[in-house]
């Protein structure tokens, strides 16, 4: 029976107003609420639904990151993942590193599907799924809003700029979850208790024969340039006048 591997990244919670460190070396993460990347939650939810339909036997959640990412993996276990693997590193993980690590796990676990979020809301890079698919030499289906398993292949609807695209990929394959793939379930308290007993393996990234040293050097992190303060108008007439002055309406 099929295994599904799901990528789970620990990120700054989406409700946090991110602030840049004064010395330009990054963003402030001390004392900031951390969560599962919301797109990875959608990826996990999809894996769980595929399993609940009887189309897979096991869902494995994998994270690449600091020791604290165990918290996010426990959340994934509470949502319903069967077991979890943390590949531990203190370095900031670039997507290419994440893809190389996931490939090692894929080679060991031999899943039929790998599902990850389409992007992580910290680096917004949107690279891990295609990179893993490339290194694995398997199909990729990015920005999925529908995944239908049909024996040895999957029919996927993708959210593209023009609308919705349908493609067919042979399994095994890598999928990246878009917003409208599903709505992730809420975790219930008894599930959190149960999750504590589920297996969570921690392995050092170095033990896989890989290095997490980034290929891109972050030179400076700075806040965006603010927009200049606008004005409030009192009614439609004033608004239209202002737009006419700017030559934006005739």
């Amino acid at each position: 029976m099929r295994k599904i591997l799901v990528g789970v990244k620990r990120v700054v919670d989406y409700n946090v107003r991110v602030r840049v460190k004064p010395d330009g070396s990054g963003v402030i993460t001390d004392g900031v609420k951390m969560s599962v990347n919301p797109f990875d939650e959608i990826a996990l939810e999809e894996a769980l639904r595929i399993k609940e339909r009887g189309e897979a036997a096991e869902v494995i959640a994998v994270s690449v990151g600091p020791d604290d990412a165990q918290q996010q993996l426990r959340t994934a276990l509470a949502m319903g993942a069967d077991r979890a693997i943390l590949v531990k590193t203190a370095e900031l993980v670039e997507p290419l590193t994440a893809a190389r690590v996931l490939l090692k796990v894929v080679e060991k676990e031999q899943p039929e599907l790998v599902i990850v979020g389409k992007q992580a809301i910290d680096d917004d890079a949107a690279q891990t799924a295609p990179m893993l698919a490339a290194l694995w030499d398997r199909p990729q289906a990015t920005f999925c809003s529908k995944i239908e398993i049909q024996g040895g292949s999957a029919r996927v609807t993708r959210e593209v700029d023009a609308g919705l695209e349908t493609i067919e990929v042979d399994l095994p394959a890598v999928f990246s979850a878009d917003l409208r793939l599903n709505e992730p379930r809420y975790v219930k308290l008894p599930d959190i208790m149960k999750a504590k007993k589920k297996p969570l393996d921690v392995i050092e990234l170095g033990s896989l024969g890989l290095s997490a040293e980034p290929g891109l050097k972050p030179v400076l992190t700075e806040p965006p340039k603010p927009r200049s303060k606008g004005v409030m108008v009192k009614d439609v007439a004033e608004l239209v006048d202002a737009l006419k002055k700017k030559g934006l309406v005739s």
Partner: protein
Amino acid sequence: MSKILVIAEHDGKKLNQATARCVTCARQIPGGAVTVAVFAADPAAVAAQAAQLAGVQEVVTVAAAHNANALAAVLAPQVVALAADYSHVLAASTAFGKDLLPRVAALLGVPQISDAMSVEGAHKFKRPTYAGNAIVTLEAPADRKLVATVRSASFEAAAGGGSAPVRAVTLAAAVPSHTRFVSISAATSDRPDLASAPKVVSGGRALASKENFDLIFKLAEKMGAAVGASRAAVDAGYAPNELQVGQTGKIIAPELYVAIGISGAIQHLTGIKDAKTIVAINKDAEAPIFEVADLGLVGDLFQIIPELEKALAK
């Protein structure tokens, strides 16, 4: 000397404007010579458009039946084969570029810079992270190929008037059959394209229904504007997914952006920050959209939209 390969995005007939913006970014790379690559079943028409972009030195075409529809798994090994002679590989940071280039980068064994927003050097670029709340300057190793997607909203489209030579090439790259195109359901409309329109009218959750969202379409039509939507409006089914503007939708830079009934979540604001003029119409005076708006109007959109239509008709 940088030799830059820009991968053209197109629908088989028309070159996407995002590619013209990507060419502008490529031209800003110091000492760069820009080549545009067109992969298609029949690349002639698209190649002719690419050849007209100012600053393009050459257009190369790769004609093959398997290039009829853009599939990353099929295109990536071809791009890698073609990239042998180039120092940089760029594509627009659209659904097309985001799907293709990381696959290319991984095959080349190099990291990718996503959403380059400014050129700071031949191997140094700025890019937004955390939904645009932190801008990072990244330096890539100078002795490796540089792969980057380009944030369209940060660059003007290259002008026309060029006449670059077009050269057809044949590539030996083996392409996989494990990924197959089935269909695309593009909304057929004569409305302006959201990604490139100079004017955009967007609606949010406050429209409250799919029927009410028609008010946005009608106003946009009157203004000759494209239609956008907030994530909330798309999630609620008021508007189709391709109209979503924001961190996970389209990032746009129109001359005029009119946000109606959109509160302005940070994820939405990141998609519109480069608009020249932002107009916000919302009944909540405390809505965060007013923090970025150049012109703000507090009031009931169901009253304001008809008034606006009337005022514009005069």
